[in-house]
């Protein structure tokens, strides 16, 4: 049975969210959204059935906020969001992320949309998962050109949250807050340590027990392709049409 790249990422994200009570997913994030839905699906099947509260921005139904856009940030500050996802046009080895652009600000060479809520949520959400599909030296840089949100550092700033790791098309790195470095934990099937090194512009540690990223079993795959794909289609119809045409 073939597992697609997207299915592996959805499954891996769901595993990272296993103990969460409340998960939020930001704009333009179909794979984290589907991963969170799978984690909720698993929570519902525990005995007794467990609730996993999901806030998917851009969704009408998977979004229970009633106080306006500020509520997501207030929930995070209250400690009521256990996990969130951020990407980055650039990510560096200290866990700094850049969502603004390359070159010299403000007349950047390339301009990305902007920092969104990163300069707040990155400090406050305990399980901040960095997710960027593209794994190249263009993205994984030695030092970001603009710090939208800084990685954890010893600066005395209130920071109950922070990155727990970085998931890409090639691998999963955990983030060590003390060493302020990424550590390569698992490599996705079909990829190699050499390939990860060749495509990463920053230094990282390698786990002694480095393994292949776990694959979903047949029944999990059926869940992803069926109910999960159908649920995420409300917020991301285009994504589902492309990746799960049978569920669209």
């Amino acid at each position, binding site marked *: 049975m073939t597992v697609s790249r997207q299915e592996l990422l959805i499954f891996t994200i769901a595993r990272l969210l296993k103990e969460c009570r409340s998960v939020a997913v930001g704009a333009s994030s179909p794979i984290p959204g589907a991963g969170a839905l799978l984690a909720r699906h698993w929570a519902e099947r525990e005995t007794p059935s467990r609730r996993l509260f999901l806030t998917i921005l851009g969704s009408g139904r998977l979004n229970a906020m009633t106080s306006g*856009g*500020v509520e997501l940030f207030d929930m995070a500050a209250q400690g009521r969001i256990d996990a969130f996802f951020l990407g980055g046009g650039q990510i560096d080895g200290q866990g700094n992320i850049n969502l603004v652009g390359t070159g010299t600000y*403000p*007349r950047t060479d390339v*301009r990305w*949309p902007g920092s*969104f809520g990163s*300069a707040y949520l990155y*400090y406050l959400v305990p399980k901040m998962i960095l997710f960027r599909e593209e794994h190249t030296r263009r993205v994984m840089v030695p030092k970001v050109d603009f*710090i939208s949100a800084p990685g954890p550092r010893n600066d005395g700033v209130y920071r109950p949250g922070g990155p727990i790791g970085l998931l890409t098309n090639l691998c999963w790195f955990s983030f060590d807050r003390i060493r302020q470095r990424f550590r390569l934990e698992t490599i996705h099937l079909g990829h190699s340590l050499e390939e990860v090194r060749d495509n990463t512009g920053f230094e990282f540690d390698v786990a002694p027990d480095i393994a292949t990223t776990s694959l979903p079993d047949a029944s999990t795959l059926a869940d992803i392709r069926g109910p999960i794909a159908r649920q995420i289609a409300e917020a991301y119809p285009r994504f589902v049409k492309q990746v799960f045409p049978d569920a669209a």
Partner: protein
Amino acid sequence: MPQDWLLPSADALAARLPDGAKIAVPHDTLGVAMETTRALIRRGIKNLHVVCVPVAGLQVDLLIGAGCVATLETSAVTFGEHGTPYRFHDALRRGTIRMLDATCPAIHAALEAGRKNIPFIPLRGLLGSDLVVHRPDWKTIDNPFAKNDPIALLPAIRPDFAVFHAPYADRVGNIFIGRRRELATMTQASLGGALVTVEEVRDVDLLASEETAAGTLPALYVAHAAIAKHGAWPCGLWDLYPTDESHFRRYAELARSADGFARYLDEFVHVGRQAAAAE
């Protein structure tokens, strides 16, 4: 009977906004006043300071392309899956707008301070971000109630007007905003209140029922309103109508160049001008 709050058109509404005004606008899915935006471009408004609550989309790209914006304060500029804001990128490259990059909760918090009419508000996060480096108006202090706890302070945002589009007003000018509470926050923070377009005026009293009152922006805060059918087009409006994706694609093609953008304005904004020239 004519009422003072209800103006005959989006153009009449746009005429109430002076050059140099600071306006607060919501992001694409909340109810963007696109017909008002076209009217502002038609009237040739200049030097706007646009505060995006909390991110910008097509509305801002249009206003920038048409030369209406002096300062842009936003947490992001994005069309989502619907293309690239080329006019914004062009203005940044040429240095024709002053850019105030923010983060979403900072805009929400500064408006919250604005509605309370307090001078500033503290906010977590932020410290160590390059956003702070480029925002000299943001300060860092030591929490006066604890030891070793640095925290950022943001000055209140008090726009001149909030400008948005909503499904309907009732007979006295109360506006239905549902659960989009940021529309109330940004309006209450604004010195002049809201300039709103609505799909329709209904002969009802929104405050008479507990169910609708909770989703109502009271008329007290509303400076003026005007009816604009499909006033958010080509953006969508809640669950009433979806984003016009094919129009966004057309815009993205044309707005890639200054010439193409000028053609877009002729075709979709200065419609009257074209018709008059043909006569």
